[in-house]
């Protein structure tokens, strides 16, 4: 480590957020991934609106057409049809909305719990921290999968429930992260100063600590989206997911798995969609992490 940092020659160093932005802009892969995320989001939104307006395109995703069932990709059904003759391409586009919504909202739920629990543990420390962290340990010991399975069976498989359950089981990482940030920031000069000025707990948390922990939390959030998408896909795959006929990427695969040896297109394309979406989010998240990191890896 170069301890004697030479002084900069040109103007004063840019603000951290501006520097992060500049770093992010320099990251070609990250930009591309972010572009993908935006395209996906726009697509999902467009098709959601089209669906709500009653203008299904290219076809009604839920219209069955038994004469055309299990057709391989062709000029009418670009990605083939499923066991009821529904157009896979239309279902994929329509499913994007649900899959992405599940991803985002589940992350929101998980962040909300994780940040709250982590803040409480990190701010109060001592036995509160100890108690909460042991509880977090206990939850982390669970094979998450059984937890999700039983929880979904318990509350029933609606979109909202799935979102909540995925959020409920995935907050531990965030909680740990936030707590660690708190433990560091709690001792920092400006928090000490704020405390010396007589500011109260919540104010310190919301005004001084949380904004400074925002960057890593943001990164966790972006990286959490694909995990939630994958979790929904896994659940739907086992038949615990979003109810038919509503298409999601996961339950298109789930419906298709029975025909797997006879109709490969039923699982190939939705799988690729999941892969692509998850990958875009992961790469965006990673680029974001590199950008906000206080020390750039390449230096």
């Amino acid at each position, binding site marked *: 480590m170069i301890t004697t940092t030479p002084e900069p020659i040109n103007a004063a160093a840019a603000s951290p957020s501006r520097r992060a932005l500049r770093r992010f802009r320099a990251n070609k892969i990250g930009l591309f991934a972010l572009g993908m995320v935006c395209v996906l989001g726009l697509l999902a939104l467009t098709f959601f609106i089209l669906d709500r307006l009653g203008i299904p395109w290219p076809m009604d995703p839920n219209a069955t057409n*038994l004469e055309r069932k299990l057709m391989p990709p062709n000029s009418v059904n670009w990605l083939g049809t499923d066991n*009821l003759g529904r157009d896979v391409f239309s279902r994929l586009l329509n499913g994007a909305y649900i899959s992405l919504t599940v991803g985002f909202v589940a992350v929101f739920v998980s962040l909300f719990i994780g940040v709250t629990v982590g803040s409480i543990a990190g701010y109060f420390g001592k036995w509160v921290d100890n108690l909460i962290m042991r509880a977090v340990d206990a939850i982390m010991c669970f094979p998450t999968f059984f937890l999700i399975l039983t929880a979904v069976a318990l509350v029933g498989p609606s979109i909202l429930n799935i979102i909540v359950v995925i959020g409920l089981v995935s907050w531990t990482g965030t909680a740990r992260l936030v707590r660690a940030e708190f433990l560091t920031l709690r001792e920092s000069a400006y928090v000490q100063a704020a405390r010396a000025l007589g500011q109260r707990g919540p104010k310190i948390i919301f005004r001084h600590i949380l904004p400074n922990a925002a960057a890593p939390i943001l990164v966790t959030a972006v990286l959490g989206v694909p995990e939630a998408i994958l979790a929904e896909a896994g659940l739907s795959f086992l*038949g615990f997911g979003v*109810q*038919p006929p509503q298409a999601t990427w996961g339950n298109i695969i789930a419906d298709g798995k*029975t025909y797997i040896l006879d109709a490969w297109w039923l699982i190939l394309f939705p799988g690729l969609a999941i892969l692509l979406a998850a990958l875009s989010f992961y790469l965006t998240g990673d680029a974001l992490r590199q950008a906000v990191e206080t020390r750039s890896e390449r230096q």
Partner: protein
Amino acid sequence: MPGMSRVRVLIVGIPLLLAAVTAVALWTVARVSVDKKNEMYIGSIGEPTTLNPIQAADSVSGSVTGVVFNGLLKYNAGLEIVGDLASEWDLGQRSTFFFGTDEEAIMAAANLEAGLVDRTALNLQRYSVEGNRLMLELSLPGVSDSRKLAEKFGVPAIPVRTVSITAPKPLGEALAEFAATDPAGRVVRVWTNGNLGELVYLGNEEETLGRLRVWLAERFGEEGLVIEPVLAPEFLAEPEVTFRLHEGVRWHDGAPFTSRDVKFTYDAIMDDRVASPRKPDYELVLSVETPDEQTVRVVYRRPFSPALESWMMSILPAHLLADVPPDQWPLAFNRAPVGTGPFKFAEWKTNQFVRVARNDDYFKGRPHLDSIVFRSLPDPLTLRLAFETRQVDFWSADPWAVGSFRKDERFTLFTSPSNSYNYVGWNLRRPMFQDLRVRQALAHAVNIDQMIRYVLYGYGTQSTGIFTPEMWFFNPDVQPLAYDPEKAKQLLDAAGWVPGPDGVRVKDGKRFAFTLITNNGNVIRSDIATLVQENLRAVGIDVTVEMYEWAVFLKRFVNQGEFDAVVLGWALGQGFDQFQIWHSTQTEPERLNMVGYQSEPADRLLESIREEFDRAEIIRQCGELQQLIYNDQPYLFLFVPEGTSVMWKDAFRVKRPGPDATWIDEPVTMTKAGWSHYLEWFYRPEYAQEAVNNP
């Protein structure tokens, strides 16, 4: 720096080594020839729960115990009942009529003698008088013959009444003691099993029941004591089956098979500690007697026509189990059973396979195969993967794949109608489904032909009610309701459901909207649900489809009657008794009449079918019942699917004993009892020499 380079070598070397060994392993596995042994590989979805046949209820356990154990009776290839461990059997019944005085009994006998034209027509063998009782001995159980004979008595017999007793504690000798105190000898029969009892008596209901209640309450307390009348004939009708057992049958451990084993098996099924799901089949048994080692006589308390089939139940070895408390069985016997069947249990690797090996001393001759391996696989897809790599020899083909397998020369296909049907059950507790016109409209609105063509790929027929065409008591005259959406609309209009502003029909301000539920993971059912949804939308009915995990589906919705409509199927046995599914007493939560069907004529038929042993009469009554229920449309009866099993063509042939000590060598063929009926006579053609030398 040697340490450093070692680290480097390890870091690169370990993953490369792992990858390399895996690649070599793949190469080895891919190149291994299908060097099959003289074994059969059967794949099944799921693991057997137990290999104790009286405790098992799942089909996987059943397929294993089927080759390890024998029942007293079995079906032959034509689905007729033939002897298995029993070489022959006799049916009979003693019907006892009670009269006010001894003289009346004698008079009735005399009138009977006078009126008899043809004894055999009514199966009467002999009759006798004992005090005030007239006893008829018949060669066929049932109530109708006895009633016809009773018409000739000319003297009115005193009707008998039957009550069932449920006590909070085991009844023990209480009922017998009560009978002994009866001053007028009006208690004619008592029966006790644990907490349950039955009492048959003559005369004044109020008086006897009152005394019984007081007597029992003194001993057991009022709480939990239930005394209620039972539907039973008005005379004592006690059917009897006598089995003559095969000589020289030995258990796999060498011990001889005797009547004691049969008696023990019956006792075990009735033992509460065993919790056998088969107990209801034997609850009407009055006694099982073993006059000698080769004879078993079973007496029933009243006619129960499914009785004979119940003795297809596998028989357990008394010498191994009689001294072991039932809670120890799961630890030893249930994992390593000893039977009398063509194959002996060999090994059970959990979640992998159960292997049974040939029983060289099988009493019907030595089977050809060395062993049978029952592989347990998690789902239909893995089963198919196993079949395609020849890890199992058979596969129940998915309907959409049958076509391509039929074209392929390497396979033999066995297609047969199943004993099952799929339906949409309407919850008759819901007002909207209570109108018959609505239910008929629903039936007319759904295109079942299309469903069969595209969901089953043509492998199925439209269902016309509670029985399937393969059953001998099926009524072929029931005409299915045709697909006719216009008629459906008319019927709905007539029922007051008129199209509303959004196209959905409305009546009294309520939209015709309901939720159709089914379990997830079954593509056929989810396809049905989606198509029903589509078809009904066309006639102005708004259907929401929901799918739940099986356990949730049953517990929360079906068993509680908490649903509007449900897609389900019944897999029926060969029996005609459908009391549990349709009788009006079976509509409570957790019972099987979950749609809440209640019909007096149907109740009467369901009750009388149980007491009928006459084939023609059973056909008539079942036919009537089938028509009756179909007319009521409590279900939308959809279709009876056909099952197709695929076998690698070169895998097996059959060489089985034919008539006159000859051997019939033939390809595996479908019988009424399925392709696997002659399982013990299957052989692999590569091992033909051995099979030929075998006899």
